[in-house]
């Protein structure tokens, strides 16, 4: 019964999406308020029905209803509740339902948000959102129906891949999708602006919070993925340039560019075409990412079971939706008046350069990820592109960009001059110089690249502080405290985010330069020293978990904070016949010690792999700082035209109408 309800709900949602799109497009064209109101209602109802379908699937998993094929494939009765819930989006079909759900909720949020958004613009935004929703719902129903029955229903299901049975993995997809799919709002706004034929500050003021929200979720989601792969997959690595990782990075890069571009558009009315183009491309990259993971065009450890038929459908969606959007762009965008003037030394120019670098970085990742596909399609030749390529191309572009990051906020709008700019950058430059010289003095000339990395980190962190200091320097009465109090939250957000970037840079540099490891066969009582820390194997025993059996090794390690115990397990899941390794990690501010056991060695000892990971937590700490900075910015009342907290059912929030204090 539940499956049928879910199925029906999805079909109804599809119909509503079509109604939504049609009524709003026609309503906006004819300025028919009744039609537009109907469209908004359709948007809310669409979200409600997909919620029903999503709840139906979730219930089926929680109650272990194995008559539904999907549940039987990804869950069994021995599976803990958390992973039965997580399995709801652990499959291709389930993740697509999550996708359309979030898409509809974002749409409903716009429909319910009050405030100063022009009714015709809002209508067109929702119309585009409806078209996107209809396309994905069609995809879901035609090729990836989650509610297909399995007859006869098996007695028990196959368990979820043991590697995915981790709390982090339960939350990683929803957070990531809130980011990916959130960019659809920007897409809808961009296309709506093209249909309307006008882009103004009102538009930019409306788009920015949504892009910021999506960007925050995407940042957190990508970081969660990195942390998860670090401690769960036992790789001890944090980024692999795997195609699916790249698929999440590309929208993030474009969303970052879009964020800054919106700022220029809102404050100065410049970079209009750039902003529209970025808003179209960011979500298009999300769709390309979806295509990559589900079509089988590239193999990846992250990919879902592949199906070229689904790939064809998604490719068609991309071709039509992005094609129409870019076609509109080619037709209408040239008519937009060129924006306000600015000179070469100005904040606008810096942000233009910022866009350029981010676009080049995105192009690099795109090339590296998809070049094998193109070469294969043209020549039948198989080449592979791995980390060495990205280190040679992406890293230099980003390092140049990082230099720019501290320069931009120190520039004035429209017109500035070089000498005062350099004076403002004195402290960050000094910090960078001290860092590079200090690193060379302490670690030797052989580590020049790492020294430069530390310099970049110092440049970014002190640069962020300098932005605040520039605002707080008491130039007039009122004193420092008054000026701090008057600083808009958005500036604090900026400082936090840019400083976070610096912190991440420090972490990456330390890991690239000073990571070390050892692999030996150990017997109980044996000790091993790595990077000045001594690790002793204390004991080895067999244990049993809810759905696995494991060999568990206990290690004693001497850290700065005193002796600690680390546990590493080698688990075997009988249901799926898979083996996984749980690593033992000692987390410290200055770095982690990472232990991972293998099987028995030839001489009877236990294979033990030990790593020293200096400053690795800075990588994620910095990323979370960036996300936090974004949240602080979002809290700025000047930005909050209408922020709706994402809830199970959308709740309307009246928008505080603040006069523009640009």
């Amino acid at each position, binding site marked *: 019964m539940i499956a049928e309800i879910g199925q029906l709900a999805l079909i109804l949602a599809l119909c509503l999406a079509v109604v939504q799109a049609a009524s709003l497009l026609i309503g906006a064209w004819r300025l028919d308020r009744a039609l537009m109101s109907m469209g908004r209602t359709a948007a809310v109802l669409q979200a409600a029905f997909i919620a029903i379908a999503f709840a139906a699937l979730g219930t089926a998993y929680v109650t272990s209803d194995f008559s539904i094929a999907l549940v039987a494939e990804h869950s069994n009765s021995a599976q803990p509740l958390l992973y039965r819930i997580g399995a709801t989006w652990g499959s291709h079909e389930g993740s697509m339902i999550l996708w359309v759900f979030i898409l509809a909720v974002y749409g409903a949020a716009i429909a319910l948000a009050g405030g100063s958004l022009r009714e015709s613009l809002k209508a067109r935004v929702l119309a585009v959102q409806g078209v996107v929703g209809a396309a994905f719902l069609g995809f879901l129903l035609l090729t990836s129906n989650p509610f297909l029955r399995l007859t006869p229903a098996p007695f028990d299901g196959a368990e979820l*891949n043991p*590697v995915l049975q981790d709390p982090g993995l339960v939350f990683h997809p929803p957070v990531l999708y809130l980011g990916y799919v959130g960019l659809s709002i920007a897409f809808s706004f961009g296309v709506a602006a093209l249909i309307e034929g006008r882009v*103004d*500050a*009102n538009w930019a003021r409306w788009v920015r919070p949504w892009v910021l929200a999506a960007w925050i979720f995407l940042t957190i989601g990508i970081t969660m993925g990195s942390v998860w792969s670090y401690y769960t997959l*036992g*790789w*001890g690595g944090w980024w692999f340039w*795997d195609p699916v990782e790249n698929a999440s990075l590309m929208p993030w890069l474009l969303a970052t560019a879009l964020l800054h571009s919106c700022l220029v558009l809102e404050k100065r*009315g410049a970079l209009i075409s750039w902003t529209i183009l970025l808003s179209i491309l960011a979500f298009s990259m999300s769709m390309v990412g979806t295509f990559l993971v589900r079509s089988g065009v590239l*193999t*990846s*450890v992250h990919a879902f*079971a592949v199906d070229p038929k689904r790939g064809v459908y998604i490719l068609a969606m991309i071709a039509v939706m992005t094609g129409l959007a870019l076609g509109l762009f080619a037709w209408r965008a040239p008519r937009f*008046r*060129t924006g306000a*003037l*600015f*000179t070469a030394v100005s904040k606008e*120019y810096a942000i*233009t*350069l910022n866009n*350029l*670098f981010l*676009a*080049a*970085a995105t*192009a*690099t990742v795109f*090339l590296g990820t998809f*070049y094998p596909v193109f*070469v294969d399609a043209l*020549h039948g*030749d*198989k*080449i*592979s*592109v*791995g980390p*060495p*390529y990205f280190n*040679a*191309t*992406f890293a230099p*572009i980003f390092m140049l960009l990082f230099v720019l990051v501290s320069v931009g906020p120190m520039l004035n709008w429209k*017109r500035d001059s070089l000498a005062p700019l350099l004076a403002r950058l004195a402290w960050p430059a000094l910090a960078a110089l001290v860092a590079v010289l200090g690193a060379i003095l302490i670690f030797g000339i052989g580590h020049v690249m790492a020294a430069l990395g530390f310099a970049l980190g110092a440049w970014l962190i002190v640069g962020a502080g300098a932005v605040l200091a520039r605002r707080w320097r008491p130039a007039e009465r009122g004193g420092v405290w008054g000026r701090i109090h008057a600083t808009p939250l958005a500036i604090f957000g900026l400082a936090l985010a840019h400083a976070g970037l610096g912190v991440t840079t420090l972490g990456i540099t330390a890991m690239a330069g000073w990571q070390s*490891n050892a*692999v030996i*066969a150990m017997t109980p009582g044996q000790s091993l020293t790595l990077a000045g820390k001594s690790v002793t194997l204390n004991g080895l025993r067999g244990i049993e978990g809810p759905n696995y059996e494991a060999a568990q090794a206990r290690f004693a390690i001497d850290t700065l904070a005193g002796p600690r115990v680390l546990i590493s397990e080698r688990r075997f899941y009988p249901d799926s016949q*898979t083996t*996984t*390794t749980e*690593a033992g990690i000692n987390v410290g501010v200055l770095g982690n010690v990472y232990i*991972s056991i*293998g099987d028995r*060695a*030839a*001489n009877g000892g236990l*294979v033990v*792999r030990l790593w020293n990971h200096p400053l690795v937590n800075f990588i994620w700490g910095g990323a979370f700082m960036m996300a936090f900075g974004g949240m602080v910015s979002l809290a700025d009342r000047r930005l909050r035209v209408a922020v709706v907290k994402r809830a199970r059912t959308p709740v309307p929030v009246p928008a505080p109408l603040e006069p523009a204090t640009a």
Partner: protein
Amino acid sequence: MKRLIAPFLAVLALAGPALAVLPSEQLSNPKLEARARKIGAELRCLVCQNETIDESEAPLAGDLRVLLRQRLLAGDSDQQAIAYIVARYGHFVLLKPPFEADTLILWLGPFLVLVLGGLGVAAMTRTRATPDMQPPPSLTPEEEAALARRLEADRVS
């Protein structure tokens, strides 16, 4: 059958730590072992996607690690050892794509985008920079008010 094998192998791959090199495989000569590790980090494991042979626990990866060390022990240079493996498994085994006619766009693309884009931005700025960026002559209060009204209306285009 293929549907089962790929995820099975993928999980096998996922199960492995970043260093699947076994103690028994390591060479006693630390210089040679260091070279083997460096080369190993640049060779792709062919059965498990997106892992180096050093990272992968697949048996084939183990065979290749042992083979690599044998070649180094036999006196091969880094290039010769890599060439030996490429001769048997093709270019796909290299994580760093070769720099040849086929891959020109791949290697030059990023910098081409940067350069072309940079030129575009520079051109755009030049057309924007008006020659008279000097402060305009001061306006009368009425002209000032009219200008402000005009600008406001212009902003909402």
